[in-house]
């Protein structure tokens, strides 16, 4: 009996660990590869060097793509934060007919497959004459990020005590004053989290970008193109930097939204 129990516990541990390794393997393999001195994708790498980082930062194309990605993600996540936060406030505090429908509409870009949004944007932007422009790209990224902002900010506003707002209203503050002077100053950690979330989403976006960006380069777009054509070890350096960047963003997000909260609840 106990022997069987031990065996079943052991097999569960082995299965669980194996799946965890499978899940983590891509992240674990890419980083060492980026320090390889070999031209082919050998793993484990035969020797160590920084040549792929040198070729990355020495390349005008990658530097341009990096700057574009940063600018694009900054602008689109900021627009998404402003629009999404205001909308989240109305959705949470307002009581009017069609609220649920409106909410579903705001969430739609998150549910509809990105490839459909990409095709729809391509056709619409082409007819409006903004296909391939930077402005069009910003709008496309904003739409993809905004549902997450609404979601995060709705949760934040719901957790904010409505009586504080009622007090402010009693003291004669208008809705806008309440929002600007009472609600938002208290919700900045969630707003920061939402902004980081939107930023990373935009920074990693590939599908819609491929369709509507025209000649504009972004890091994921360039990386995708290189992966399709040939496999160049420079990509491992890009990939490693992307992992570091995303994990840094996650760390900042955890810090601002109070340590550990992400794991304790919210799924």
């Amino acid at each position: 009996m106990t022997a069987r129990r031990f065996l079943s516990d052991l097999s569960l541990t082995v299965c669980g660990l194996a799946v965890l390794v499978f899940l983590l393997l891509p992240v674990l393999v890419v980083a060492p590869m980026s320090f390889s001195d070999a031209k082919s994708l050998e793993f484990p790498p035969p020797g160590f060097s920084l040549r792929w980082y040198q070729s990355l930062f020495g390349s005008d194309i990658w530097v341009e793509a990096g700057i574009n990605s940063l600018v694009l993600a900054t602008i689109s996540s900021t627009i998404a934060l402003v629009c999404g936060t205001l909308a989240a406030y109305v959705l949470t505090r307002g009581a009017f007919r069609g609220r649920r429908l409106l909410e579903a509409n705001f969430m739609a870009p998150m549910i509809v497959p990105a490839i459909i949004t990409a095709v729809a944007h391509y056709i619409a932007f082409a007819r409006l004459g903004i296909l391939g422009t930077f402005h069009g790209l910003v709008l496309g990224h904003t739409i993809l990020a905004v549902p997450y902002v609404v979601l995060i900010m709705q949760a934040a506003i719901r957790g904010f005590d409505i009586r504080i707002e009622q007090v402010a209203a009693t003291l004669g503050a208008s809705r806008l004053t309440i929002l600007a002077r009472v609600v938002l100053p208290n919700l900045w950690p969630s707003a920061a989290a939402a902004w980081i979330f939107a930023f990373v989403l935009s920074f990693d976006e590939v599908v819609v970008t491929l369709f509507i960006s025209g000649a504009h380069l972004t890091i994921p777009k360039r990386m995708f193109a290189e992966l399709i054509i040939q496999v160049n070890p420079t990509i491992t350096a890009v990939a490693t930097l992307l992992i570091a960047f995303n994990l840094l963003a996650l760390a900042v997000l955890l810090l601002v939204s109070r340590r550990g909260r992400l794991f304790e609840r919210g799924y």
Partner: protein
Amino acid sequence: MTLPGSYESGPVASQTVAAAHDVAAEATAVPARRRASLRQWELFFLLLPMLLLIVLIFDLPILNAAYWSISDPKTGALTLGHFRDFLDSTAYLRIIWRTFFLSLEVTAATILLGYPLAYWATKLPPRWRIVVLGLVVTTFWVSILVRTYAWIVILGSAGLINRLLMWAGVVSRPIEFLYNEFGILVGMTNVLLPFLVLPLFAAMMRVDMRLLQVAETLGASRFRIFWQVFFPLTLPTLAASAILVFILSLGFYITPAVLGGGRVPLVANMMDLLINRFARWETAAVVSVVLMVVTLSLYAVYQWLREKNA
């Protein structure tokens, strides 16, 4: 979807609340009607930027694509011709079926791998549980492109697995794991696994342990307790998450394009070709509409399952 927890008001705020609660209750009754009408106006004003954004940049483009699927590109007259062409073409239908079956395979693989991982995590001591979940969330945060690319390094002909196999003498020549359906299956399963593991873990933690204890007291074997008590209680969440994984697989673009090497065309890649290579907008619009209807119907089932379970 993992989201940062909501922000709670601090100690200062709650003191303010306690002190002012009575005043607030008294005052809300007085000029309620006049203020209510003003409030609606202000609400609309606050909503306006988002409304403009979503209508102009999302709703209208989607409706426009739907219109393209049923109208003649030259005359603008309504027609069902594009749908008929689509249904008549065996090439398109073959791609649709292949996508459908591959998505089923991916869903089955995430269930087979994800369930044991989530179950194992619930059995761990709390400290280790946080580490394991933290690692799962971490992979969620790494770009899909990077995670897909890594499989070229792992499964490629000079990659980790092939070198191990050749070193061990199992094979004499590298096995072709990539640029076929197997490679896509591995990559997509890897990317989509957290979408199943995280909700499933939460559902498992919600299972009332007393039910299992009762079953044990009544003399049920561990095997029976698991399959007749525990598993059925997690089934609604498993089904909902599996549907979510299936929906996400249907529209997947990046992983099939990279790991399939263009040899395994799926729906999303077909849409890419229709737009960017053949400029067949109306056919791409037809595929969009079909994919959209399937996705939204399945999403409705997903929501229903989640609400039923909540």
